[in-house]
């Protein structure tokens, strides 16, 4: 048996004598919590970078002429935005930060199954990020994040190889994370913690990992083939060389559609946690939420062709993919209904994380419903590759994943740092983000149905009003993203101590101190209750305890 008598020192504390030793204690750490913090810093850096590129794009689009950027620069800006956001923020975002931090705590383990693999994945992420960054610094890349051949393999005159190398290496970073999650969930659960006692965040992370493990290698080899075609001019996908460009699209979307679920599934998990905690009651329909995550992961593998309805694939494939796409809408709907039902007879408090969760539901509903529009082939023919698609996936990715990411960060911030942040500012920024987001992206639905194609830096005059509205909204959105950065950073010094369980939440992570001790649990806990084990009267007691002046 491993020693259990370990000093319960917070994972952030150190007794390193020198600064250099302190840096080393972070860069060579195998503690999942420290690795999560490393990820948090890196991922937020890339988020800001991607956001900067987005701002440039939005500013350019204020006028119909290409007056701020040349077409070349504009293409590089939106490609940078896409690649950074997709590969370096959305895909690793919630799993690598919240998942790394929480999964061992939630399953009652001292660490991930493979701690060094975990650290290795962070280094892979950083190496991949450096490749992508250097591609941007040395002139950028203009293929769009989808790298469609033969443009990317033959015609583009930009740093495609460097960028592909970045995405390739990043892919192995997420594979490492996925392997770790799967093995940890299977083998490291505390005694008594059965599958149906697991928090829903663990379920959704598990489903995410399944997708990562099965799909990521395929895009890895596909990008490798594109690189080979580009370097040696001997092609697999270029029709001039005997190949078929649609094969690239099949292989690419075989990963990249499930990747959308890699981005949103962990968000679902976070929202389940938040809704339950801030309603002070058990989640409604636990099994249905858990199974719907798995169903999304599995059905998600069968729908990639809905990105290719006008690409020249067969009518038969179009119909099959359209049909399965309709089916994948159902598990997402089940989740939304169950969250809503959880609110019923709860004792709801409007703490910052809950505001994000409620905002998430609203935005995700719009994102999901417009997904059905796009799944219907006849409509997709008109709106694909227009701003309708842009608006749709931003509703899911920004309105979904980023809201969940921010909600999760706010929820577990006291656990991660031991400090509370300013909740007034928290509420204000959540509101600003919600308003700014809708202002930015709702007009784009209209633009898209009007026929405004995506990736245009000059556009006909009649689209200007909506573009200006959208750009104005993006300013609001940007402010909304910057405020949390400020008050969360300030809270590290000024925030009041949070205590072990500031939200009165259930779950093993709230039973340890804040910040958690380096070894998580002095004694491995034995679990005897289900997740979200609020007693039936918890909501009543909470409401009864409310006095004017208590937090809303």
């Amino acid at each position, binding site marked *: 048996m491993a020693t259990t008598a370990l000093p319960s020192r917070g994972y952030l504390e150190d007794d390193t004598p020198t600064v250099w030793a302190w840096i080393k204690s972070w860069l060579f750490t195998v503690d999942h919590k420290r690795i999560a913090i490393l990820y948090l810093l890196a991922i937020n850096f890339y988020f800001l970078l991607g956001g900067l590129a987005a701002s440039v794009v939005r500013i350019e689009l204020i006028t119909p002429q290409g007056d701020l950027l040349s077409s070349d620069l504009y293409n590089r800006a939106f490609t940078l935005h896409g690649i950074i956001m997709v590969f370096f923020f959305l895909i690793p975002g919630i799993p690598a930060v919240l998942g790394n931090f929480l999964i061992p705590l939630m399953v009652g383990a001292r660490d991930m199954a493979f701690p060094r693999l975990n650290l290795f994945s962070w280094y892979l992420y950083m190496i991949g990020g450096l490749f992508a960054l250097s591609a941007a610094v040395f002139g950028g890349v203009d293929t769009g994040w989808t790298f469609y051949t033969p443009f990317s393999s033959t015609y583009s005159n930009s740093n495609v190889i460097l960028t592909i190398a970045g995405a390739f290496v990043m892919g192995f970073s997420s594979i490492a994370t996925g392997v770790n999650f799967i093995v940890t969930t299977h083998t490291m659960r505390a005694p008594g913690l059965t599958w149906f006692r697991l928090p829903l965040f663990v379920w959704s992370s598990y489903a995410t990992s399944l997708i990562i493990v099965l799909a990521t290698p395929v895009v890895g080899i596909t990008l490798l083939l594109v690189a080979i075609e580009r370097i040696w001019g001997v092609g697999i996908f270029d029709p001039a060389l005997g190949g078929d460009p649609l094969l690239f699209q099949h292989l690419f979307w075989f990963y990249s559609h499930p990747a959308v679920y890699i981005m949103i599934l962990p968000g679902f998990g976070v929202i389940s946690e938040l809704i339950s905690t801030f309603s002070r009651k058990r989640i*409604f329909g636990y099994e249905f939420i858990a199974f719907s995550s798995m169903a999304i992961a599995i059905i998600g593998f069968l729908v990639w062709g809905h990105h290719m309805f006008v690409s020249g694939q067969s009518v038969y494939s179009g119909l099959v993919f359209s049909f399965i796409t309709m089916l994948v809408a159902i598990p997402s709907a089940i989740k939304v209904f169950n969250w809503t039902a959880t609110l019923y007879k709860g004792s709801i408090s409007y703490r910052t994380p809950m505001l994000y969760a409620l905002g998430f539901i*609203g935005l995700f509903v719009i994102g999901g419903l417009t997904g059905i529009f796009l799944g219907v082939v006849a409509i997709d023919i008109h709106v694909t590759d227009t701003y309708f698609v842009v608006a749709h996936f931003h509703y899911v990715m920004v309105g979904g994943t980023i809201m969940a990411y921010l909600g999760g960060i706010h929820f577990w911030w006291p656990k991660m740092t031991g400090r509370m942040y300013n909740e007034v500012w928290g509420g204000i920024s959540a509101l600003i983000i919600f308003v700014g987001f809708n202002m930015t992206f709702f007009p784009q639905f209209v633009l898209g149905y009007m026929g405004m194609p995506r990736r245009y830096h000059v556009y006909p005059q009649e689209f200007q009003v909506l573009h200006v509205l959208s750009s104005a909204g993006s300013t609001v959105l940007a402010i909304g993203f910057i405020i949390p950065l400020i008050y969360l950073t300030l809270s590290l010094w000024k925030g009041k101590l949070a205590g072990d369980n500031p939200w009165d939440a259930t779950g093993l992570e709230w039973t340890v101190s804040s910040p958690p001790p380096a070894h998580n649990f002095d004694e491995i806990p034995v679990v005897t209750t289900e997740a979200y084990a609020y007693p039936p009267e918890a909501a009543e007691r909470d409401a009864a305890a409310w006095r004017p002046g208590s937090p809303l």
Partner: protein
Amino acid sequence: MPDFPLFPEQASTFAGPIDALYGVLIALSLIFGGILPFIILYLMVRYHRSQKADRRNQPEGSLPLELTWTIIPLVLVLAVFFWGAFLYIDIRTPPARNLEIYVIGKQWMWHTQHSNGKRENNELHVPINQPVKLIMTSQDVIHSFYIPAFRVKQDVLPGRYTTMWFEATKTGEYHLFCAEYCGTEHARMVGRVVAMSLADYERWLTTPGEIILPDGSAGAGGSGSTLIPSIGDPMALAGAQLFTSLGCVGCHRDDGAGIGPSLVGLYNVETRMQDGSLVTADENYLRESILNPGAKTVAGYANVMPSYDGQLSEDQLNQLVAYIKSLSDSGSASTRLSNDQIAGVVADELK
């Protein structure tokens, strides 16, 4: 304030049905997406911790409820799917009689060519109330031919043909966009579609005008006006000239006695191949057989034809394909029909 429309114009036969489906989807979305937020808002307020409310007997789950909100959406999305699927099949099935126009996409312009050989750049003139079939290919990367007012879009791929059809219903000028990102000047790969009455179209078609060829040189485009009434389809005529000058006629004799199969009546007919499979000799097959003759050889003939890959421009390929089609009834029916009409109109004009 510039003009500020919120809905695209409806200018083809597809626009109505697609907008109807879109409208139904919006209505359904409002029922779900519009009502749900209000339920959430209500619950948020009603069960806020500051509110006195009955919180006893909390439900933890309910199978009937779960089934309800699984099955109702499922039925609805399936209904929507079938509606959309039938519409989609319509959009992808061109009627037998149509006006064929060839489209070539290249970085960063559209090049179109009408049945009488008249060419346009970044413009497409089409008659209204007449099915138009576009036969499209690309010289370089993937493009996408998109006319929002007609609600049609189709990617244009290098190395093969894709087709798309529509029937315009309203005269006017509409946007033509490239919807698939194709490189630096993607946003400038735009043009206009001019829908005009059949009479206007035919007059336009037979009016000479300066035409810029894809390679940038100027060519005389109006030859059609004199050719159509007397000879027929100039596109096919040019193909016929090529067919002779390339020496195709030496092997592909009309009577079938040559080394190669006769091409008369070949187009759109199922043909038995060397390996026993049946292949419909459509545009893509003809194209492939010119570029890579060995890929599918007709049963009973040796694979002896040299490849013309790299020796023909896309224009010349189109002309050859048009010629081969003109040798068969099914192929020429559409073009010949419209040419007859054109000839008729021209004759009317001359009176």
